[in-house]
């Protein structure tokens, strides 16, 4: 696999990694910072971390795949977190997923198996709980939580995000 890493980002990564001391137990923090830079954990970054810290690649991948926060593939431009907490489940969380999928289909950007739309615009991921249970069902788009959703509201919000007209 060929990895294209933006040079500008690359220098931020190099700077972050270079500034890491030999602090014990810092692997998760390094991975979090890496993901902050790239949006996911590119293979080349994992190799670079292994080389710098002396931690084996297998172990890094082991840690990265254990925690749900880490992504090994590039996510979409806009990240949709669909809450699957208990309160959301009881109040019809599956409607959000159906509505999102319907929106992707109607706007000609089918969702691929890795959860990213064909045009790279959206990624859809379910999360255990966003902690906004009293506004269930809830989804979060690019860090902003939207509550008390139904199918129509969901489609409207995603439409607004796609066209860039949604107020941040």
């Amino acid at each position, binding site marked *: 696999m060929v990895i294209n890493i933006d040079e500008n980002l690359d220098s931020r990564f190099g700077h972050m990694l270079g500034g890491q001391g030999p602090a*014990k137990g810092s692997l998760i923090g390094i991975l979090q910072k890496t993901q902050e830079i790239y949006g996911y954990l590119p293979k080349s970054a994992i190799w670079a971390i292994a080389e710098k810290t002396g931690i084996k690649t297998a172990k890094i991948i082991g840690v990265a795949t254990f925690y749900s926060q*880490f992504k090994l593939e590039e996510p979409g431009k806009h990240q949709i977190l669909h809450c699957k907490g208990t309160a959301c489940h009881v109040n019809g969380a599956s409607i959000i997923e159906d509505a999102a999928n319907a929106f992707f289909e109607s706007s000609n950007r089918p969702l691929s198996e890795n959860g990213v739309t064909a045009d790279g615009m959206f990624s859809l991921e379910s999360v*255990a*709980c966003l902690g906004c*249970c009293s506004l269930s069902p809830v989804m979060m788009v690019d860090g902003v*939580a939207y509550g008390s959703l139904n199918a129509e509201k969901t489609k409207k919000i995603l439409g607004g995000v796609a066209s860039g007209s949604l*107020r941040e």
Partner: protein
Amino acid sequence: MRVVVGMGSCGIAAGAGPVYDSLKAGLEGHASAQLSIAGCIGSCYFEPIVDLIDDSGNKTTFAKVNERTAKEIAKMAIGEENRASFFLMPQEGHDFLAKQTRIVLRNAGSINPEEIDEYIAVSGYSALKKCLSGYSSEDVISQMEISGLAGRGGAGFPTWFKWKAARDAPGRQKYLICNADEGDPGAFMDRAILEGDPHAVIEGMVIAAYAIGASIGIVYCRAEYPLAIKRLKKAISDAYAGGFLGSSIYGTEFSFDLEIKEGAGAFVCGEETALIASLEGERGMPRQRPPYPAASGLWQLPTNINNVETFANVPWIINNGARAFAKHGLQTSRGTKVFALTGKIKNSGLVEVPMGMTIHDLVFNIGDGGAGVKAVQMGGPSGGCIPRELFDTPIDYKSLQQTGAIMGSGGMVVMDESTCMVDIARFFLEFTCNESCGKCVHCRIGTKRMLEILERIVAGEGQMEDLGLLESLATQVKEGSLCELGKSAPNPVLTTIRYFRDEYEAHIEDKKCPAKHCRALVSYSIDPGACTGCSVCKTGCPVNAISGEPQETHKIDSSACTRCSNCLRVCNFGAVLAN
């Protein structure tokens, strides 16, 4: 005059951001009206909430504020003619708060969590001063013992006992950890406390550190709570600047450093040995105890771990006296507990009540639960479903355990006749199966097999033998797992079989879902007599399975319908029928 906007995560999700902007614009140029923010007061169903506080401290509260009504409130604040009184918080909103006993949530929603001075103004950090200037570490621990404070993370272990064990453990370097990895789906108490009153948690931690002799503290907070982390970071840096953290606190020899570590998303890390592994940069897998963390924890050094809510109680206990705390609640469970009341209930939000209140009082008197309520789920994936017949059960650690559920961290999801209990069991098993760390075979594979059986049942392909099989697997998973995740994973299945066996039988024998929830066993149609042709269902249908001209009876195409139930929920005329 002060204008305060509730800006917890839930307030922001309900639209508090634009409300704040609108107030800011309306108050511009009027120095007499100060705009500020507060955390979540708990009445989430009335968010966004705005308070007007006049110079003598009288408070006027507005509910469900939007950008337009915010303009009216701004006019009221600056003494212009306005229509703000139309948007006052209804009496029931005030009653919701009046029925509670707020110790942990004493400041949440009333002080600005980003200003340390507002915390100090409500006697913040005075408990710490009292401890450092007049109490020995034994005194502090003995105060905790008299208060009867027990771990609010779920296990209910006496706090003083853990502190004493860590204090007595040999070693010069000790760690204190705050578990803010609130992973139970359906619980958000810790988030609200951290967002609304972060200094209370910090002060509780410094007092605990003094009691056990710890010099380094870590708050392990889940990354899904960005606002809590942001406010906590600010609070920690302000506490350093104020001399409440760092070296020589209050001029004594006592020093304590505090930092935040973000969790990376693993439910099992709520378990203390898994949390420690995660802090060490490893996969968060629990290990056998003993040795307990008090003897050998982070980096094999003595470590004490308590939950956010536990720490938030500590300054109140020191300030008001351990006996004042012990007066609340029952002999066996002292004090109060914060619950996240959600699900099929009108007044959803955060409530803090004395231990010993019955489930009935909490759900109906405070939560205003409807006639259709049939159960409440407590304790999340480790807990169970308590049926309405048992709603007279008092909320204390022991009584709840007898029902098969647990106190847990405080998630309380109310369920009504539209909630399928078999599906709820499947939902929790799916969660624990995903979150099993994989160390113990019974937890890793047993939960998977249980999930497959439950999936079969909700798909209408179950057999009566499946119930026995589920019960037998449940016993094996409980016995064959090292940590509480596995030991308690079967609880949701066991309690639903115990109390709602008829629902399982209906799925298996009659191929019916009594709650009309399970997609394989339900179909939707429109009642021509009730349909007004308003098209709300048609517009909302994600798969365009509904057809019909405006003002004419609509029709659902069963072959295209995915049974998502959106039409049933949005119809205002009860015209959508589930069969």
